């Protein structure tokens, strides 16, 4: 078995890996959208008028946040069919990622809301704005830019967690690398190329998020040294 990096093999498997990268980006994107929505649900679930509902939501959020995504994936994939709910591996993966990262985004939203100066809330009350109006016109437009860097970071984070989906058979990039590596009995080239592809995609994304963060900080009046 050759020890050196076989460029001919790498060239041969490159198309399959690139095709699978499209799946990875799709999986990350859809999972992220679900997470954005679920995060909102969890946030609202903790601000209802019922103390019990708030507490239950809080406990659920804590539970999902404190346990590994990998086991949550296995749970959804293996257990749901046993209760008659059979979803494709893709849907299982998207839902679980959405749930898991939804709990993180919920915290981002909470942090962003709390960062809005108290004076804004007081002004709303003084001007007799209804809760809905206050949120819609005053609070959320100020909270949103604050939340963006956190949300951007988790988008990159979801992208880097997509390889976990391969353990339940979702045909994304890492799964393709394992399949082609298993078929040819060589892991060196497939896994190295997966690493390179991830780097090429996530470094620009991370830089873009950091630029967003700087812009938001400047707008907020905070400067970095």
């Amino acid at each position: 078995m050759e020890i050196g990096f076989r460029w001919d093999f790498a060239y041969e498997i490159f198309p399959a890996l690139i095709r699978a990268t499209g799946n990875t980006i799709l999986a990350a994107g859809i999972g992220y959208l679900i997470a954005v929505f679920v995060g909102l649900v969890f946030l609202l679930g903790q601000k209802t008028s019922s103390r019990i509902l708030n507490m239950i939501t809080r406990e659920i959020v804590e539970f999902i946040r404190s346990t590994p995504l990998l086991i949550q994936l296995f749970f959804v994939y293996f257990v749901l069919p046993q209760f008659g709910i059979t979803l494709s591996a893709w849907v299982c993966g998207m839902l679980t990622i959405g749930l898991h990262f939804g709990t993180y985004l919920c915290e981002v939203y909470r942090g962003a809301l709390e960062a809005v100066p108290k004076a804004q809330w007081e002004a709303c009350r003084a001007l007799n704005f209804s809760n809905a109006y206050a949120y819609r016109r005053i609070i959320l437009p100020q909270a949103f830019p604050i939340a963006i860097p956190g949300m951007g970071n988790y988008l990159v984070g979801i992208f880097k967690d997509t390889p976990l989906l391969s353990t339940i058979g979702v045909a994304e990039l890492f799964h393709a690398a394992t399949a082609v590596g298993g078929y040819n009995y060589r892991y060196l080239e497939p896994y190295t190329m997966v690493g390179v592809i991830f780097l090429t995609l996530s470094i620009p994304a991370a830089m873009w998020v950091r630029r967003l963060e700087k812009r938001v900080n400047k707008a907020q009046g905070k400067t970095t040294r």
Partner: protein
Amino acid sequence: MTRFFKVATVLLASVFTVSSVQAETLTERLANGDKLRLGFGTAVPWAYAGDNGEALGFVNAIALTVLEEMGIEEHETKVFEWSGLIPGINANRSDMITGGMYILKSRCENINFSDPIGVFGDAMLVPKGNPKNINNYQDVIDTGAKLVTGTGFNTVEAAKKYGVPDSQMLLVEGEVGILAAMKAGRADVAVQTFFGAKEHEAKTGGQFEVTDPKLMPKETLNVVGIGFRKSDEEFRQAFNAALAKVMASPDTMLERAGKYGYDRAQLPPPSMTTEWACATK
């Protein structure tokens, strides 16, 4: 503060130094007192780990009987994802592959096999009653059914060879993944070893049934060998010698492997040798 770092560094140094794996041949390492490492996946009844990591399954049973004959009592077990078995042994992660690997030309290019320990066939797993009447790869192509099998399985190569399009293939992790996909209805049919399919039929109480292996293409009859690194030739020869002795009077082996369903029908015919399999499969 600094004391903490000193303690941490010492702890980590011990973790990393005690754990490097040397690159001598297997015979040398065993002579030095290292334990033999059996590598396999989770494939009932071929090879799987027990609650305390014991090597169960008939391939393990046969391998351990031969090792006993060689005077090697101690061993360690390592459970891999199936497609990691060959990369794993070549990366010095295990010393013998007892997953129950068919001897195939593509595999012979990467590892060496012992003489055959048995002859086996593939079969398909379908829902009870075989509603789509699928019995081989051609049926899969004709009906447009979704075929599931494990990454790194011989059946992936076979399916490609017989023309099953990629769009109809679903690749999952091992036997467990295959049954999960079938139970959830994510695939219409699974292709795996006959023994693996039988195990799944039994486990689901007949919810799925095994097709007749004779309806599969004749070439899917394969021999299984124990996998070794190409550099461990000396050990492999010794293993083959002991295997020949065990096969000559196979009663102990049959008794131990028989617990998992292996019987005399599996004993390899003399015409199907490792060299033949490496050249033709």
